């Protein structure tokens, strides 16, 4: 995202204030598979809560659900070891992370919703029409 857009259209992505704070105080901790970058305050410094501040800058849209569960734990101080320092392998049955799809075509439609594609569940009054051939 260009600097011009960051200054005048700040609501779509990172603000220039964040960029300034990270440039002054942050160090890069790692990057996830979507390209979001994670930063932490340089050693010795702390934020208003008395611990080092942690930031994420999104590759494209600022959307909190884009943070995958492994980075989510580090970002929210659940644990201090970032995923880059761990050798965690997801189990085969674990599904890849999906961001919140509300408002998009892939939004979740409950069973029976008229907006859902595909087969709707059987309802009272259904019948199977005859078709020739």
């Amino acid at each position, binding site marked *: 995202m260009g600097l011009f857009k960051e200054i005048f259209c700040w609501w779509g992505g990172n603000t220039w204030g964040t960029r300034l704070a990270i440039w002054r105080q942050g160090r890069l901790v790692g990057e996830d598979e979507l390209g979001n970058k994670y930063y932490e305050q340089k050693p010795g410094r702390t934020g208003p809560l008395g611990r080092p501040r942690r930031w994420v800058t999104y590759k494209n849209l600022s959307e909190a659900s884009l943070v995958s569960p492994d980075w989510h734990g580090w970002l929210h101080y659940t644990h201090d070891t970032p995923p880059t320092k761990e050798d965690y392998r997801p189990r085969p049955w674990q599904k890849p992370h999906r961001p919140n799809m509300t408002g998009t075509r892939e939004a979740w439609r409950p069973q029976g919703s008229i907006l859902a594609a595909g087969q709707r569940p059987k309802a009272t009054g259904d019948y199977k029409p005859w078709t*020739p051939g």
Partner: protein
Amino acid sequence: MTKKLIVDGKEIEVEDGTTLMLACEQAGASIPRFCFHERLSIAGNCRMCLVEVEGMPKPAASCAMGVGDLPPNRDGSPKKIFTKSPLVKKAREGVMEFLLINHPLDCPICDQGGECDLQDQAMAFGCGGSRYAENKRAVEEKNISPLIKTMMTRCIHCTRCVRYMTEVAGVEELGLISRGEDAEITTYLERGLLSEMSANAADLCPVGALTHRPSAHAARPWEMRHTESIDVTDAVGSNIRVDSRGAEVMRILPRNNDAVNEEWISDKARHVVDGLKAQRLDRPYIRRNGRLEPASWSEALAVVAEKLKATAPDRMAAIAGDLAGAEEMFALKDLFSRLGCRNIDCRQDGAKLDPKLGRASYIFNTTIEGLERADVILIVGSNPRVEATVLNARILKRYRQGGLAVGLVGEAAALTYPYEHFGNGTSALADIAASRHSFADKLKAAHNPVVIVGQGAAARADGAAVLGLAASIAAMAMAGKDPEWNAFSVLHTAAARVAGLDLGFVPEGGGLDTGGILSAAFERKIDLVCLLGADEIDMAKLGPTFVVYQGSHGDAGAHRADVILPGAAYTEKSATYVNTEGRAQMTAKAVFPPGEAKEDWTILRALSAEVGTTLPYDTLTALRASMYKTAPQLAAIDQAPAAGIDGVVALAKISGQVSAEPLFSPVRDFYLTNAIARASAVMAEMSALKNSTMAAGRQAAE
């Protein structure tokens, strides 16, 4: 002899043979019961009907105790019976508590919930809670039929199902084994019930041990709308109740009518329901370039009208099928006679029944209720067990009372009661008619003889002569007896047939009958054929004829048709059906026809306007008024007026060459006799099961 009793302070006088329960009911007291059922033998094993009898140390089971068994009081005063005393209340609470010891508390997931005798009576007569803390008994599931779902843990051993299967259905396949806590209802062998009316056992079950599998967990009884209607899957005209929810028929239950079906219906009548939701014709179709394509009503009617106008009256024909109501047959006949066409026939099986001989020549004159007075029955070319299941149960009921002799001319079959078999061919018939046969003497000696003639005898090339022979046997058997008694009884297999014959939906003045229409169509002498739900004819014989099919289900007729006009099934219209006894009964509209389908008479009315010969009725009432002028017997709803014996005498005069070919029942597969049943997955499953079980039985026999 009568006996005086004082029930709850009210003095009544009852016949000596009545039971205490009936006596109490005559006095206005209501007695709770589980095992007792009016139409079954008395078992007396549930103990719910306990009453207090003066002078007896313990309460008595009122269903099993005869009034005559009560010892008289010393001073000769009438016995006092108490049905509301503290002793009776305590006894009922005790029985209820014992019954509920091993009954699971699964009412919320039980299909019987809402119509459960145990639930109702636990509320009315039970005590508040249970003192039983031990483990409940569990019973293994039984796989007894695709139609009956079992949950035998719920069983309270009333044995209604066992008695029903033995006494009414006539197959000894269900029984109670072991005793005490280990008692179980089971089929003795691991196999399904082979009865055409097994599903009534689930109706009789007072708890949820036997429920209907096809309608399992589909609906609760209180959320369904009840419509009282008539069954059309056979010609008995069983009274049914159609339960629907919204736009869907959920289930069909029997309705009590002592004159017709008592309270039983066949499995086909009950479980044909899912056929009403499959293979439906829900829009008009027109064949264009050899392919049937969806069309609008106006297009389809315009095409048919144009064709009707362009065709000479003697080059078109109409055949009515087995499920057509009287109203649409009347409208179709009216339309075709206005067009000048005489080639109409309602006997798609080619039966040689002639309405000109009089009504007595084609109805079941004895009436179904009358069978209970019969003492000698001769069955000709029929298998009543599959052709008219409920009527067969009536014969079994009569047989169980003793003193009934049954003879059968035609294909041998398992009829649930023993009979003398006089060969598959027709030769015995001529012998009986000429009094050269021992059975002729039995018929002559009988008080109330019956000659049942099936469609297997009537629908033959020599059908008229066979019918004549049977009628002469009936006339011979009736001679010099009660003039009210008519022995000649034609057993129909199609619900529409008697109404069709009543309306004269037969060729007149040189018109062609079904066989004639088919051969003329094959020889290209007929250009247009209207099929009103007629699916059981040989479609290949129609050749290149333009075929208009009006009906509710996509079956043989729809596949062959050039124009399809979608009609309503019997649950979707109010129509008159006349059963084999000549009893006119009316169906009621439970749900609307699917999609663009319309009630059948309205289609014909719209078509007549399109052709330019508008039929003079705009409402069903006006149509019926007009119909009743033609056939006044159809106006006598729910009655079976006696038809006299003139028709039988006229039929007996018909004689001709009778071929020696064997007589066959026209119903080859009980479960698949009409288009609705053929669309039903449940009926297909039952048919396959029956065929495989029969094949296995034959293999074991070899």
